[in-house]
C-alpha cells in the first residue's frame, strides 16, 4: 500500500437535535485515501459534507463511527497535528491581532522558538502578499486578505500535510491563481495538499486526485483523467456563413447553436457524419473555422454525480 497522508474508512457523522430527537446524517460511510505528495481535490455542492469531513479530520468534530488516520496516526493525535497545517472555511481569527501576531501565536502553539517564529512569519507574510498590511489589525482586512493570513498561519510549522477548506473562497482571479500556484509549489516541495472547493476549473488545473461528495456520500474518486469519460460526447463546430445568409438545414439535429453576426457555433451529435455536414456547409458558401471533439469535463461529471445523488432510489433502480 502506498504511503498515506490521510486514510478515512467508513466515516459517518450523525447530528441529533437535542429536543426534537431528529437525526441528520451529515456523512454516510465516507471512505477515501490521500497519498503523500499528492494534491487531492475534495469537491461537492454546498451542504454535501465537505466541511464536516474536514472538521472531522482536524479533530474538531467527533465521528459517529469509522476511522480516520492522519499521517499514520488515529485522530485525535497531537503528534500528527505537529505536522499538519489547516485553513478553516471562511477563516475567523482574533481580529484584534496583526497578521504578525497571529503567526506568532500559531508558532508558539507549535513550540517554535522566538527566532524561528520571527523568521518564518516574515517569510510567509511576504509569500502571501500581506507585506504592506503588517501593521493593520485583522479587523481591517478584506475577506481575501483574511484568506491569505489564514494560508500563512496554516504554513507556519512547515507542515507535511496541508488541509485547506475552500482556500479560493473570497479571492479575486489574481488571488485564486496565486493560491493555485502556492498549492502546486507545496506539492513540488514534497508536501501533501488536501483542499475542498466547488470551483471545478481549479480542481481540473492542479489536482492529482479528485473525490466528489454529495449528500454525505462519496460519488466518485480517482485522477481527473480516470474520472472523465474518454468517449466523445459531441463535435464542436464553428463556421463563418456567407454574408447575409441563413444557416438553414445546417443546424438541424445540433445540440447547441449560437450565432454572433456571421459566425455560427454548434455542437453536433457524437455519431454525426461530420464530413457530409462540412460538405453541406461549403455548398452553402460557409467557411469552416474549427472542428473539435467534445469530451466530458469534470464539470459534466460533477453535475452528473450530484444529480445522481439527488435522484430518488426508485429512479436509480429503473435506470439502465
Amino acid at each position, binding site marked *: 500500500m502506498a504511503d498515506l497522508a490521510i486514510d478515512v474508512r467508513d466515516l459517518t457523522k450523525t447530528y441529533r437535535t437535542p429536543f426534537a430527537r431528529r437525526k441528520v446524517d451529515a456523512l454516510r460511510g465516507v471512505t477515501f485515501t490521500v497519498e503523500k505528495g499528492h494534491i487531492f481535490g475534495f469537491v461537492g455542492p454546498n451542504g454535501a459534507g465537505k466541511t464536516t469531513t474536514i472538521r472531522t479530520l482536524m479533530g474538531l468534530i467527533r465521528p459517529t463511527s469509522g476511522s480516520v488516520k492522519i499521517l499514520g496516526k488515529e485522530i485525535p493525535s497531537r503528534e500528527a497535528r505537529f505536522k499538519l497545517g489547516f485553513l*478553516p472555511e471562511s477563516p*475567523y*481569527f482574533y481580529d484584534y491581532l496583526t497578521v504578525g501576531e497571529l503567526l506568532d501565536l*500559531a508558532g*508558539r502553539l507549535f*513550540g517554535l522558538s522566538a527566532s524561528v517564529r520571527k523568521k518564518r512569519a516574515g517569510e510567509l507574510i511576504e509569500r502571501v502578499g500581506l507585506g504592506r498590511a503588517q501593521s493593520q489589525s485583522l479587523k481591517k482586512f478584506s475577506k481575501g486578505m483574511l484568506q491569505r493570513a489564514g494560508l500563512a498561519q496554516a504554513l507556519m510549522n512547515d507542515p507535511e500535510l496541508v488541509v485547506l477548506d475552500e482556500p479560493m473562497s473570497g479571492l479575486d482571479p489574481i488571488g485564486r491563481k496565486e493560491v493555485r500556484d502556492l498549492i502546486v509549489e507545496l506539492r513540488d516541495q514534497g508536501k501533501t495538499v488536501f483542499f475542498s472547493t466547488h470551483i471545478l476549473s481549479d480542481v481540473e488545473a492542479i489536482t492529482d486526485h479528485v473525490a466528489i461528495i454529495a449528500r454525505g456520500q462519496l460519488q466518485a474518486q480517482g485522477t481527473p483523467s480516470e474520472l472523465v469519460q474518454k468517449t466523445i460526447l459531441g463535435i464542436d463546430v464553428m463556421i463563418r456563413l456567407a454574408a447575409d445568409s441563413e444557416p438553414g438545414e445546417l443546424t438541424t439535429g445540433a445540440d447547441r447553436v449560437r450565432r454572433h453576426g456571421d459566425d455560427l457555433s454548434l455542437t453536433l451529435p457524437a455519431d454525426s457524419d461530420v464530413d457530409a455536414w462540412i460538405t453541406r456547409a461549403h455548398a452553402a458558401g460557409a467557411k469552416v473555422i474549427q472542428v473539435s471533439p467534445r469530451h466530458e469535463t469534470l464539470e459534466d461529471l460533477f453535475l452528473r454525480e450530484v444529480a445522481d445523488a439527488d435522484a430518488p432510489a426508485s429512479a436509480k433502480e429503473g435506470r439502465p
Partner: protein
Amino acid sequence: MIGRIWAIALNTFREAARIRVLYGILVLVIGANLMAVVLGEMVTNEQARVARDIGLTGISLFGSLTAIFLGVFLLYTEVQRRTIHAIVSKPIERWEFVVGKYFGMVLVLTVLVALFAVAMVGMLLLQDVGVSTAVLKAIVLAWFEVLTVAAIAIFFSSFSTPFMSGIFALAMWGLGRVTPDIEAASRDAAPWIRTLTKVALEIVPDLHLFAVSGRSINGEHVSVHADLVSWGYVAMASLHGFGWIVGLLAIAALLFHRRDFV
C-alpha cells in the same frame, strides 16, 4: 505544555487590553478613589477607614463583576465566532486551551486587583497611615475570591450562553457570599428543607470565607481596620478557593473536550 498554555493566556490578556477592558478597569479605580476622597472629607478622622473600605470593596465587587463579564464570554465566543477552529487543530490539548484562557483572565484580574491595591495603599500613605498586615491579608483574600469567581464563570461558559452563564455565575457568587446565613435561616425549617439546603450549599463555593472583615470568625470579631484573621486562615481559605478553581476548570475542560465544534 507550559508554552502553549502561556500562548493562550497571553493572547487572552492581549484581547482584554485591545478591547479596552483594562482602560475600563482604570476608570473604575480612579472613580472609586475619587469617591473615597469625597467620602473621607465628609467623615472627620475616618479617611483611612474609608480608603480601606472603598479599596477592598472595589477589589471584591468590581473584580468579581469583571471576572463574570470576561468569563462568561470567554469560551462561548471562541466557539461561536469559530476562532477556536484554527487553534484546536494545532497541537494543543483542549484542557490546555481552557487553562490558558483562565490564566489569561487571571492576568487581567490581577492587574485589576493590583491597581485597586496600589491606589488604596497610596491613599493610606497620603494620610500618613501605614499599611497593616490586616490590609495585605484582606487583599490576598479578595484576590482569591475574584479568581474563584472567574473559574465559576468559565465553568458555565463551557456549556451555556453568556446570558445564562452570567445569571448562574452571579447567583453562585451571591449565594457563596451568604452560605452561613442561609444555613442559619434553615435551622428552624423542616428536616427535609434543612437537608435540601445543606446539599444545595455543598455545590456552592464558600466565598464568604474571603470576605471576613466585620464578621465573627471562631467567636472573635475581625476587622480590616483592627485585627483580621491569621495568615493560617488566609492560607486555608486560599486553599479552599484553589480547590474550587481546579475542580471547576477540570469539569469545564471535560465538557469542552466532548464538544463538537461545528
